[in-house]
């Protein structure tokens, strides 16, 4: 499927669905403790940066295994557009590091999990030398299980936690329940695991929780990740033009919509609206804060935020949004209805550009999905805000023995192998012959490959963000180029790149924000209700949180340039 693990995991609609409630994480390095700790009563909140972070971070040793066809630029992934030659695949893990122990891993899973003893899991376990046992949980409702499992005394050896599931008290849980990997990875120690040493430092910095290196990161491009995808084949047939402003979009949407023929223009466009209006990122709480004229403001306090919601609401009012979108998170998977042409545009994680393409390739040869450039709301270039350079982490149980931790790192060292290696092919495509076949340099997954090789190992740790689709090189090229064009219009907000844990007493602040947004956009609440909610937010702690963030900024400076 996606040879890019960064996009494999969060690609499903959960990525959009789960949104903004992602609190972030962590910790007080010593100086911070002194600064913020006392007043907010705890050593768990804050961040670790500068010298303190440097001591924890693994050394960076670039991987020279393969050279990408398109180098990373403006926060994009690296791209590969060439053919695949099995004969020239490199070996990045020269000796089996696993000691044959058993490791249980709980991870979010989007789709139907395969049998636990399938050929893919067996093949990976043989390659690594560890007996990995998977506990796959539904990714769309992962946040509902995570809290309960972390509260129990029976936590798996490894737990994968996406950033957007770090709401409520989850950051506290991460700090108290998971092991410090520093002794195995900080500084030169990481050189025992060459593929982990090649993970960019930005991603590792995000893995410091509670003043210790706890996470194994899945690096992500910081360029915008949400793309308005559209049915290019139908656009071409009907002569529709890709819109260049919000007004043009609305006009086009009205032209497209014809309920009688069961066709609507789009799904909920809230996420694209946020980009078009230049609203600060909502994928993680700290990203939503930015210093403007010496004062920190939060995304929901800006005019742009309300304007974006208002415009999204206008689409619903105009009746151009597919009725399924009214169902919110309970809406069915958009894939089949998008394929049927019931709607032509929807915002999604960029990885679906590729996955929708392959899904329909066999039965629907005319089907062509493409990504629109995000437009500025008034027709100019939009200003967008950078995403975090790592958003999904694997953590090791604090109670795990040293041998288990070493086995986990052996797993991660294989899954983090770069494109062009045997380990990468095994991790992302499975066993040759069983899970995929190669014809003319194009690997194609078999039916069994589509069942077995899904999520799982790609969730543990990944190489630097990579896009490589030998079967659709033009899609890979377009994806990387889209990221580079959009990345050029992207700025970094004040807390970009930092892993910050908010104090406990603020963690429930904003829990209902996403509900409010959806209520307003769907016309169930008024924009003035949202304004009221925002002013309540300020008085219930938002202003206190502002001061708290200001202290962090004063202490640490900004990681963004």
């Amino acid at each position: 499927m996606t040879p890019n693990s960064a996009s494999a995991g969060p690609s499903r609609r959960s990525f959009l669905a789960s949104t903004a409630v992602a609190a972030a994480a962590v910790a007080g390095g010593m100086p911070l403790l002194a600064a913020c700790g006392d007043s907010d009563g705890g050593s768990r909140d804050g961040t670790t940066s500068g010298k303190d972070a440097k001591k924890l971070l693994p050394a960076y040793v670039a991987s020279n295994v393969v050279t990408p066809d398109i180098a990373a630029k403006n926060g994009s992934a690296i791209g590969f557009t060439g053919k695949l030659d099995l004969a020239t695949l490199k070996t990045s893990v020269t000796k089996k590091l696993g000691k044959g122990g058993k490791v249980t891993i709980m991870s979010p899973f989007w789709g139907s999990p395969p049998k636990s003893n399938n050929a893919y899991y067996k093949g990976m376990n043989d390659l690594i030398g560890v007996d990995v046992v998977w506990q796959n949980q539904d990714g769309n409702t992962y946040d509902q299980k995570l809290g309960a499992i972390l509260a129990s005394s029976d936590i798996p050896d490894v737990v994968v936690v996406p950033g957007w599931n770090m709401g409520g008290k989850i950051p506290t849980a991460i700090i108290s329940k998971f092991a410090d990997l520093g002794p195995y990875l900080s500084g030169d120690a990481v050189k025992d695991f060459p593929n982990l040493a090649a993970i960019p430092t930005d991603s590792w910095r995000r893995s410091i929780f509670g003043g210790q290196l706890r996470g194994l990161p899945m690096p992500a491009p910081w360029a915008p990740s949400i793309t308005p995808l559209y049915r290019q084949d139908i656009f071409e047939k009907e002569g529709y033009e890709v819109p260049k402003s919000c007004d043009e979009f609305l006009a086009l949407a009205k032209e497209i919509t014809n309920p009688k023929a069961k066709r609507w223009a789009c799904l909920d466009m809230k996420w694209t609206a946020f980009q078009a209006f230049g609203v600060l990122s909502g994928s993680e709480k700290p990203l939503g804060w930015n210093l403007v004229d010496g004062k920190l403001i939060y995304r929901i306090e800006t005019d742009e935020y309300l304007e974006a919601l208002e415009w999204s609401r206008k689409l619903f009012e105009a009746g151009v949004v597919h009725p399924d979108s009214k169902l919110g998170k309970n809406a069915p998977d958009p894939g089949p209805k998008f394929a049927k042409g019931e709607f032509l545009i929807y915002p999604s994680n960029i990885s679906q550009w590729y996955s929708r393409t392959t899904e329909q390739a066999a039965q629907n040869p005319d089907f062509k999905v493409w990504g629109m450039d995000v437009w500025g709301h008034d027709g100019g270039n939009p200003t967008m805000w950078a995403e975090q350079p790592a958003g999904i982490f694997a953590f090791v149980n604090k109670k795990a023995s040293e041998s288990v931790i070493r086995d986990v790192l052996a797993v991660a060292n294989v899954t983090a192998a770069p494109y062009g290696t045997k380990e990468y092919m095994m991790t992302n495509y499975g066993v040759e012959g069983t899970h995929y076949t190669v014809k003319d340099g194009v690997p194609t997954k078999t039916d069994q490959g589509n069942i077995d090789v899904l999520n799982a190992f790609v969730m543990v740790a990944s190489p630097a963000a990579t896009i490589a689709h030998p079967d659709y090189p033009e899609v890979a090229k377009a994806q990387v180029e889209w990221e580079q064009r959009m990345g050029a219009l992207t700025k970094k907000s004040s807390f970009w790149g930092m892993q910050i844990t908010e104090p406990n007493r603020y963690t429930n602040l904003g829990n209902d924000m996403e509900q409010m947004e959806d209520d307003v956009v769907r016309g169930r609440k008024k924009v003035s209700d949202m304004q009221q909610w925002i002013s309540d937010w300020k008085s219930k702690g938002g202003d206190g949180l502002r001061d708290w963030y200001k202290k962090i900024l004063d202490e640490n400076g900004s990681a963004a340039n």
Partner: protein
Amino acid sequence: MSHSTVPRSRAEAETTEKTPVASGGATGSRQKRRPEKLSLWLRFRRDRVLLLMTLPAVVLILLFNYVPILGNVVAFQDYDPYISGNGVVSMLHSPWVGVENFQRIFADSAFWSAVQNTLVLFFLQLLLFFPIPILLALLINSVVRPRVRAFAQAVLYLPHFFSWVLVIAVFQQLLGGAGLLSQVLRQHGYDGLDIMTDPDTFKFLVTAQSVWKDAGWGIIVFLAALASVSPDLYEAAAMDGAGRWRRMWHVTLPALRPMIALLLVLRVGDALTVGFEQILLQRDAVGPGASEVLDTFVWWNGVRNQDFGYAAAAGLVKGVVSIGLVLAANKVAHLMGEQGVYKK
């Protein structure tokens, strides 16, 4: 079981001493009617085998129904289950906040909106749902041919065995904005209906779903009650010239009355529980404003947001109100001359 009665005579005092748990509140006149009292020890010896047999059930109830009640202590804490490896240890170490959670609840408009939704839904269901199984039972009872009767019963029972996920998916496919009904309407030049996502009519929708799924199942107890009505009564009534309606009014319904009263009491006790799964599945479709009930409120705050202390406090409030409702409903049943759930 009160022990408040002062013994009036020496003889009575002795009896009281010997039987400390005997119904002390019984007055002399009541006691006279009762058969001779056995001492606790004698009764224990007599019933020891029976008591032994109830032991496993008692242990289970203690373990799973009573011990967890102690967990309600988190309602008075800012409970953080993650500060230690064990939930109980965390309970001991979480900061004590007294009644702060309760103060927050009573000041929380979302809580009151959940209470309001719960009560509105309860009364709607009482009005629109409760009578339907009775009517259906009367209808089925009047069908004479066994085959038709069995078939009708099977059709009515079946939806009870569907999961809520399935029921809601079916409703969505038929009545949703992109569903069958809307599409047919649109093709004939009308506007589509959006029954599934209209917050104003959501409570009727939920009630309709409950009726569709469970009304058939609810007729079972009424059919059983109807089966116990002696045919002689009908014959006698018919002899006296009572028509169909009179027989129903004067024979059938009085026979059902104790059952209706019992179920009503039970239903009222459950008033604050109006369908967790069903509503959770549709919460996002209409927004929490119209759909949040107490159970989903507790779930959202506790499990989803890990604000366990707050959620526990809300659950506790619900429990206390529910007890009050059961007692009140039971009292009403007694006033109506029915047995109710229990009698002192």
